[in-house]
Structure formats: C-alpha cells, structure tokens
C-alpha cells in the first residue's frame, strides 16, 4: 500500500506532462510542425508510461485498492479548499486507456493533418485536451473534476471548430458548447448541493471523511421527495447526459463530426464523451445510496431508461445515414446509451468495461473512416464510395475487425462487454433489456450496411468526380503512420474481451451467478447474426452500382426512412420550440433594454447635464473644470484635478504635507 500511496502522490504528473507540452507548443511558431507533433507524442508517451505503471501497481491485489493524496490549495479562516488526486482501479484503467488510445490517435493525426497549415495549433489543442481529460480522470475532487470537465469542453469546442472558416464547423462547435453547457448547469448545482450538505468536495480521504465515504449522511429528504443523495445524483447525471450525448441532449454529437477525424476518434468516441459515463461511475455511491436491486432509487431508474432509450433511438437514426462519420456518431450515442443503461441497472463493472472496449474499437472505426476519407480524397458520402477493399486492403481488414467488434460478434471485444451489459440489464428490467437487444440488432445491421457500401462492389467515386472535372483520382492506401495505429487498435478490439472476468474482479465485483445467462447470450448472438444477414440481404447481394441509386432500405421503408434520415426531426423540433422561444425572449429583452433601461440611463445623463448647466449658469468654475458632461470625463477630469496638486514646486509639497498632518490631527481630536 505504501507503494500505492507513493504512486498516488505522482498521479498529478499524468495530466501535468501534456499540459507542459501544450504550454510550450502554444509558443511555437507555425512552421515548427515536426517539433510540435513530436512534443505532443512524447508527452503522451511519457504520460502513458506513468499511467501504465499506476495501472499495473493496482493489479493483483486481493481487494479493491484506493490511494489518495489530498493537499490544501489555500485556506481562509476556517474554510479550507482542498484538492486531491486518486489512484484506484477505475482511475488507473481509464487513465491507461486514455493515454494509450490517445497516443495512437495522435500518431494517426500526424498523417491526417499532414497538409494542414495550422498543424502546430492542432497539436497544441490535442495536448491541452489530453491534459484536461487526464486531469478529470485522476481528480479526487469534484470541483477539480468539474474544472477539467469544462476544459475538455473548451478543447472540444476549439477542435470541432478547428476549420472555423467552414460555416458548418463554426455552427457545430457553438452547438456542442451550448448544449453541453445546459447539462453543466445541472452538474454545477449538484456540486453546490454536495458541498452544502457535506462541507467537502474531496471524494475520498484516508480518514474516511470524503464526500463519497459519507453518503450515509445524505439520506435525508431532498427535492421532490427524493433523498438528498438521489437529488445530487440526478443533478450530476444531467451533466453526464450533456457530455455523454444522452437523449435529449444528444444533438450536438453528430454535428461535432465537422471536426478533423482524429478529433472525432479521440474526443467524440473514445474519451471525452465517455467522461459522463466515467463521472457517473466515479460518483456511483451517490446513485445507489438508499436503494437496492428491488427498490432502486429514482436516480438509478432515470439512468437506466435514459440509457436504454438513447441506445435504441440513436441506433434507428444510424440506419438511415449516408455520411460515413455520421453513422459512427449515432452509433457512439447508441453505445454510450448501453453504458449508461448498464450503470442504471446497477452494473458498474459492465458499464465501465464496455466503456473501455468501446473506446478501442470505436477509435479504430473512426480512424479507419479517417483513412477512408483521406484515401478517397476527402469523400464522406458512402454512396460515392464502394469497392475500397481492393484499393485499401489494410484499412479494410482493420475496419472489418472494428465492425465485427461493434456488431457484437464473438470472440471480438464488443461481444463480451455488450453481453455483460445486456445480462445485467436483464436482471433489472425486461423492458430496457428488450430495447437494448433490438438496438443491438440494429447495430449489427447498420454496420453491415456500412461495410458493404464502403468496401464492397465497385468504385463509384468516378461518377461524381467526372461531373466536377477532377475525376480520375483512384482511391489509395494511406501512409504507414495512419494505418499503423488502427492495426494496433484492432489487436485490442480482438483480444480485450477476454479480460472481462478479470476486470470485474479488479473493480471489486463479487462473483455471482446471474440468471438467464444462456438466454441473453443466445439471443444477443442471434440478433447480431440476423442483423448482419439482413444487411447482406439488402446491400451485399447486389451492391449499389451508381452513387445516385436509391438506397434499398429507402424503397422498403419509404417515409419512415426519410424520417430516420432526418434524425426524427429532433433538431427541427428544437429549432421550432426552444430556439424560437429564446429568440423571442431575446428580442423582448432587447426592446426592454433599448426602451426602458437605456431610457433611464439617458434620462440620468440628461439630469446630470442639466445640473452641470445649472452649475455653469451660477458660474461655478469648479464643476465645469471637473467635467460633468459624461461619466468617464468626470473621472478623467478629477484625475487631472488631482495631478494639479503635483505642481512640481517643493514648497507646495511641504505645505500639503503640513496641511495633511494638521487635518489628521484635527480629525483625531474632534472625533
């Protein structure tokens, strides 16, 4: 344990190293591309070593280990603001994943962003993001966690809008920032309430006085008849909903695909969006406080059904998208729904395990789609692809592995983790389980659809290219620094699933025999297979011949397909209700501001001017010199008056000194 405490003291290094790199990078000139990328990779590599060292140190203990290091940031009177870092399995595994996956995504980004003129700035943002994300992971203090949480939000904003000259990117980054901010209001209220009720923001302390170690005291009545703990948990979960793109705050994530693809892989698939899930996991004691499997708290029910609904809802949308990255984006929403649902069912371990496996294979898929986009000269529409298996064999194999993992085909990683998610949900709620199983079926289907559209058949890009006069570019395989990362990640997408049992033990779950194991597993394999078969039936037998051919599914579903393609019109709904209402309110306030507030201000100005006029009429030189005609002028004028004291004549100085002394003396004795 001493060793662990020593490591806990060094946890701060994990975010500090990328932070230092970001600071240096921000000073580099634009031309220092290699240096910037090198610093970024080196910092991430070193962080990764630290994270892995911490990770291995937490392995092999009989029970869950937790070491914290808290220190006083500053204190004032009796209030003491403490911060701290933590080392426990949850953190160690997450930090190892973020640094490892992040490192390979950075490698890929050196290829993807190769020709960008703002390459240096891009890597500076990446380093900053890594620092913030890792800070979030190793924080033992909810306020520090929140600060890092906001910082990753800022980085996400900066990176989505990296190509800010594109109006769509500029709009997308604002949308992401504002939507997640709505959730953050809830999060912040939760933090305030936690501080109010416990008087501390540190989660764990060695003495057992941390906020999470005292949830037993939080079972008194809170809002709406919930307990305090449940109230805080619900508020915190609203924050997680924004960050992890859960319905109804999911709308920003698909638009976030406007950013460069490595950003999508890192931030909007593997790490940042998982921060919400991680946070719920970190604060899990609050969610379960006062409940049981039979009588779960409201917070747990909310988490469960929000997750299940998002999983299904997003999966249906993913079915009808044509943009290769949008399919993956909705798939991410859906998979995050799976994780959240697992947490809501009380399954901390399956939820976090699915987070880890998903991070690997979704990063793989996104980077793969980045390779495809580069290989096809910035084409994102799947209808204009096709036949890439021939041109990009390495990408194809890796992508196939990622797709099988996501579709839940044994023995790939996704199968194991999704299976555990479904199993734990099955114990809690048959309804949620049914929704999730159907979502799993859709997942297998839309991934198969994507595979066939992108990689099978013949190259359809020529149709489009010829029309625009720059045709003839055949797709090509990407350079090594782009395919190597996906190759590495695909190894994990294959093998990671086998560690599920070990991970459960690692996170401290007790061995228990869950009922219905065979049924759940059998059904999930069956729906997966059915989804793939259906995908083959619709898209594989007779691949699209031309980019303009209708989607086979479209002719089957008709109007419903359009509805799915337009994402159930959620954006339009928001546009017509919330945004319209805000605009109306804004206009209203502007009118009030212009007419009422400005009116009052103007009348004050007129009154002051009037007074000043009166003063002039009565011939008061002082007021005119002081300058009453405008607020600033008054201050400036009095400054001038003050500096007149400074005549430069030393005799006058002495007069003022003597006068000052006498005034002080008089005041003293008169008082």
């Amino acid at each position, binding site marked *: 344990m001493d060793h662990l405490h020593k490591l806990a003291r060094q946890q701060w290094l994990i975010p500090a190293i990328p932070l230092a790199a970001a600071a240096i990078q921000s000073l580099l000139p634009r031309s220092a591309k290699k240096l910037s990328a090198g610093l970024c990779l080196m910092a991430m590599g070193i962080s990764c070593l630290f994270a892995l060292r911490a990770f291995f140190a937490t392995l092999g203990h009989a029970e869950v280990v937790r070491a914290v290091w808290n220190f006083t940031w500053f204190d004032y009177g009796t209030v003491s603001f403490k911060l701290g870092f933590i080392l426990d399995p949850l953190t160690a595994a997450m930090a190892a994943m973020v640094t490892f996956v992040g490192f390979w995504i950075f490698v890929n980004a050196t290829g993807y962003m190769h020709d960008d003129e703002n390459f240096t700035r891009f890597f500076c943002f990446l380093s900053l993001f890594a620092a913030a994300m890792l800070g979030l992971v190793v924080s033992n203090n909810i306020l520090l966690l929140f600060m890092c949480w906001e910082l990753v939000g800022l980085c996400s904003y900066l990176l989505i809008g990296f190509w800010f000259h594109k109006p769509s990117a500029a709009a997308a980054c604002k949308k992401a920032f504002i939507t997640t901010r709505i959730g953050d209001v809830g999060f912040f209220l939760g933090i305030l309430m936690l501080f109010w009720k416990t008087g501390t923001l540190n989660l764990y302390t060695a003495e057992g006085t941390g906020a999470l170690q005292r949830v037993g005291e939080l079972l008194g009545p809170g809002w709406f008849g919930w307990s305090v703990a449940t109230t805080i948990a619900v508020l915190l979960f609203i924050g997680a909903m924004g960050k992890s793109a859960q319905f109804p705050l999911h709308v920003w994530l698909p638009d976030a695909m406007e950013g460069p693809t490595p950003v999508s892989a890192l931030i909007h698939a593997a790490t940042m969006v998982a921060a919400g899930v991680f946070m719920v996991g970190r604060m899990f004691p609050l969610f379960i406080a006062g409940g049981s499997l039979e009588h779960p708290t409201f917070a747990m029910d909310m988490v469960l059904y929000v997750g299940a609904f998002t999983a299904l809802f997003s999966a249906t949308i993913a079915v009808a998208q044509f943009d290769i990255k949008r399919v993956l984006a909705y798939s991410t929403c859906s998979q995050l729904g799976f994780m959240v649902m697992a947490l809501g069912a009380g399954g901390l371990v399956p939820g976090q395990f699915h987070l880890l496996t998903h991070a690997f294979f979704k990063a793989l898929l996104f980077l793969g789609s980045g390779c495809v986009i580069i290989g096809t000269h910035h084409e994102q529409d799947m209808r204009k692809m096709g036949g890439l298996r021939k041109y990009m064999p390495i990408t194809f194999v890796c992508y196939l592995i990622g797709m099988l993992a996501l579709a839940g085909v044994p023995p790939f990683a996704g199968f194991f983790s999704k299976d555990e998610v479904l199993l734990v949900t099955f114990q809690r709620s048959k309804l949620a389980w049914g929704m999730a199983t159907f979502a799993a079926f859709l997942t297998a289907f839309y991934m198969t659809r994507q595979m066939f559209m992108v990689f099978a058949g013949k190259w359809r890009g020529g149709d489009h290219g010829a029309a625009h006069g720059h045709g003839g570019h055949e797709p090509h395989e990407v350079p090594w620094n782009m395919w190597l990362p996906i190759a590495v990640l695909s190894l994990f997408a294959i093998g990671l699933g086998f560690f599920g049992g070990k991970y459960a033990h690692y996170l401290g779950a007790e061995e228990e025999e869950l009922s219905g194991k065979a049924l759940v597993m059998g059904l999930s394999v069956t729906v997966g297979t059915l989804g793939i078969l259906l995908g083959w039936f619709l898209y594989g037998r007779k691949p699209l011949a031309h980019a303009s051919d209708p989607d086979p599914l479209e002719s089957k579903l008709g109007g419903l397909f359009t509805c799915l393609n337009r994402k159930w019109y959620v954006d339009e709904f928001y546009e017509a209700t919330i945004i319209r209402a805000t605009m109306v309110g804004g206009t209203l306030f502007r009118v009030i501001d212009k007419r009422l507030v400005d009116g009052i201000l103007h009348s004050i100005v007129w009154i002051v001017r009037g007074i000043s006029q009166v003063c002039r009429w009565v011939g008061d030189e002082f007021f005119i010199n002081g300058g009453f005609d405008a607020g600033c002028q008054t201050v400036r004028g009095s400054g001038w008056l003050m500096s007149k004291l400074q005549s430069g004549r030393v005799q006058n100085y002495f007069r003022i000194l003597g006068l000052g002394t006498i005034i002080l003396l008089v005041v003293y*004795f008169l008082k």
Partner: protein
Amino acid sequence: MNYLTLFRALAPEVILLLAAFVALTFDLLLQHSHELQQRMRIAGVFAIVGLLGAIVLLIQQAPVTLLGGTLVVNQLTVIFKIVVVALTVLTVIISIEYPVGRHVGEYFATVLFGAIGMMLLVSAEELITVFVALELTSLSLYILTAFHKGALRSQEAAVKYFMFGAISSAFLLFGMSYLYGVTGSTNLREIAVAIQATGSTPLLVVALLFILVGFGFKVAVVPFHLWAPDAYEGAPTPVTAFIATGSKVASFFVLTKFVMLSFAGMPGSAFWKHLTPGWTMLLALMAVASMVLGNLAAIVQHNVKRMLAYSSIAHAGYIFVGLLAASVTGATSVFFYVIVYALTNLGAFGVVTALSERVGGDDLEHFDGMAKRAPFLSLLMLIFILSLAGVPPLGGFFGKFYLFMAAVERDSVNFGLLWLVIIGIAMSAVSLYYYLILLKHMYVHKARNEERLKTPVYLNLTLAAVAIAVIYLGLNPQPLLALLKNFVAQL
C-alpha cells in the same frame, strides 16, 4: 552576549558590506583599463555574488535576539530579509545594461548599502536602530536617484526627494522622542506595555501621528506621497524599481510592527459610523485618500513611470486597508500582498528599463506597438500589469482578495470595514482603465518604427522567472500564506 554571536547574527549584512567594498575597490582598479560596459558587468557580478552569499547565510540563520532586544532575528525577519535581498539581486540584474554613468563601483556599492539598511530595518525593534536603519536606506536612495548625472530631471528629483525625506525624518524623530518621553523606553515591546497601561494621552497622539507621517513618507501614502511621482520619473529606472519594491517591503514590515505591536493599546476604530480616534482611523483616512487620489491621478499620466508611481500610491492605500483590520489575517495578508506587489512591480520596472533604454524614452507613446517589436517582454509586461490590476489567476488578484477579505472578516457581523472595501474595489475598477491604456499602447497602437528590439537573454530569463513567480503565487498561494501565518505570531 559576545561579539561572535553578534557577528554571526549579522553575517548576511556583513557579507553585503564586504561585497560593496570589493565592488568599489575593483572598479577603482579597473577604471582606466576597461570599457564602461565591462566594468558594469564585473561590478554587477560581485554584487550578485555577495547577495547570493547573503541568501545562503540567511537560510541557515537561527533565531536570536541581540543587544537586549535591539535587533531580532526570527523566521519572519529572515523571510523578509530574503525577499529584500532577492529584490536587490533583481535590481542589480536590471541595472547592468543601464547607463548610470562613470561611477560604476559607487552605484553598486550604494545599492548594497541601501539593501543593508533595509535588512537592518526589518530586524530592528528599537527606536534609535529603526531610525538609523531608515536613514541608511533613505540616504542611499537619495544618492541613487541622482545617479543620472547628465539629466536635470534626475537631479531635481533627487533634491526634492531628499528635502521631502528630511522633513519627514524630522517628523519621525520628533514623534519618536515624544514616544520615548511618555513611555520611558525605546524598545518596541516595552513601549507596547507602557501604552497598554496609560492608554491614549495627547502626547502619545502626537507621537503616533508624527511617526505615521514619517512612515507615510516611506510608503508614499496621501498626503505624504508628493515626492513619489517626481522621484519615480526622474530616477534611473532600476533605482525607481528599488525604491518602489525593496524599500517598500522593509518599510511596510516595520510599520506593521509599530502599529500592531507598539500602538496595540490605542487602536481606535475605523468602522463605518463608529470612527473612534486611534491608529486604525488614521490609516483609514490615509487609505481612502490614497486609493482615490492615486488611481484618479494615474489616469491622466503620459509617462509610464509616473503612472506606476501613482499606481503604487493606490496600492499603498489597499495595503493600509488590510493593515487596519488589525488582525492576524490582516497582517498575513499585508505581508503576502507586499511580497507579491514588490515582485510584480520589480518585473514591470524591469521591462520598462529594458525597453525604454532602447526606444529612447518612457512615455506611453514610446511603447506603441511594442508587442510586435519585443513580443516576449511585452507578454511579460502583460502579466505584470494584469497582476497589478488584480486579474485572476495572477498573484495580484489573490493578494488583493486577502487584503479585502481580512477587512471584511474583521467585523463579520456589521461589516464595519466594508465601506473601505467597497471604495477599494471601485477604485480597482478605475485602475483597470489606466493599466489597459498602457497595454493598448503596447498591443493595439501601431509602432512608428517596426524594428525588432534585441534584449539580452539573461534579462529576459530573469524577468520571465519573476513572471512565473507571480503566476505561481496566484495559482498556489498556500505555501507562502501558511508560512507567513505561522510566523506572524512572532511579530
């Protein structure tokens, strides 16, 4: 008490004295054989070696009381002496490139004499010693102010500074003699006991007031501030830095000792509507006058050094607000703020030194477009100026926050001191205006001459280190605060 103990306790001061003599002698020897620039470097290095040696000795010093309580060495005084010496090191570093004329050895020796005076001032706990130390400091500073031999402005400033200082010293000495006459002691702690016993008498009031006049001159509060703008503007810029930082740190330290220790028996009250005679009331009046006048007058200045002079008058006002809280937190916040403020100001004057020499002046117009011409130093200036303005997360913000919190906390029921805090905050807002004017000149205005300015690397690095310290004290104030708070009890 044997002389060896005395020598050991004063070893840091002694080593500075030696360094001063060495610098003086060596420069005399090299006078004819070496270029001016080389002589500056050699003498500067001697001074720095001496100062670093003093820091090493200071760190190892054990607490001791000398000569029956005349000089005291304890953790708190050691911290402040280290701060003074560190500020002197920085002053010397920014002086090396500055043309102070032919008398190189004398210049550095005088700086070191001034530093010795400040160190003794920190240690002194007896009236005569305080006065002598204060005079040693002041006389060194008068001489240094006049070092711009060619510039009439420098001579004029020195004469004014000296005359004003002489009058103030007369007040101080007069007050001290009354204090001795009434209490029968020159030891600050014994005086405290005597005043507790007698309470306030008219003669004591005169003593208190006159002593405050003397220190009011040193720390430049209204109405005893009049020398500051002239002296700041006229003195060679490194000397201005020294006056504005090292001398202030020492003076505030000893002033705090005087009011919180010796005059603890007649505090009075500065609470709103409950003003009662006493030192807190006097400080409150001076604080208000300084905050208002300093900030308003700074707005209309065209010269950067003059502007910083008025800004330092305003800062003295803020510090008084913390001081008149008359509590442990108040004293802690004053000490913290003084240190942060001195570092920030030294950095700002350092940048002004480096740049004004190369553009030929220190008016606001000379700084036009500086961000393009000297981007690195401009960045540092941005940090220093924002810290002076009290923008988080820089050190200046935390310092001000603590000062005002100490005042609010003093009476957390009726918030009697809140009126001072409100004035302070309102005036801070005003101060942002003139600070931003300087930054506007540097970052927005177009330069008349686009040529890049080359500044020596060692200077850039030193100032960068100061900037990092300012940022660090803002991000992590706790270590220094805890340290000060622990030792304030020893006051």
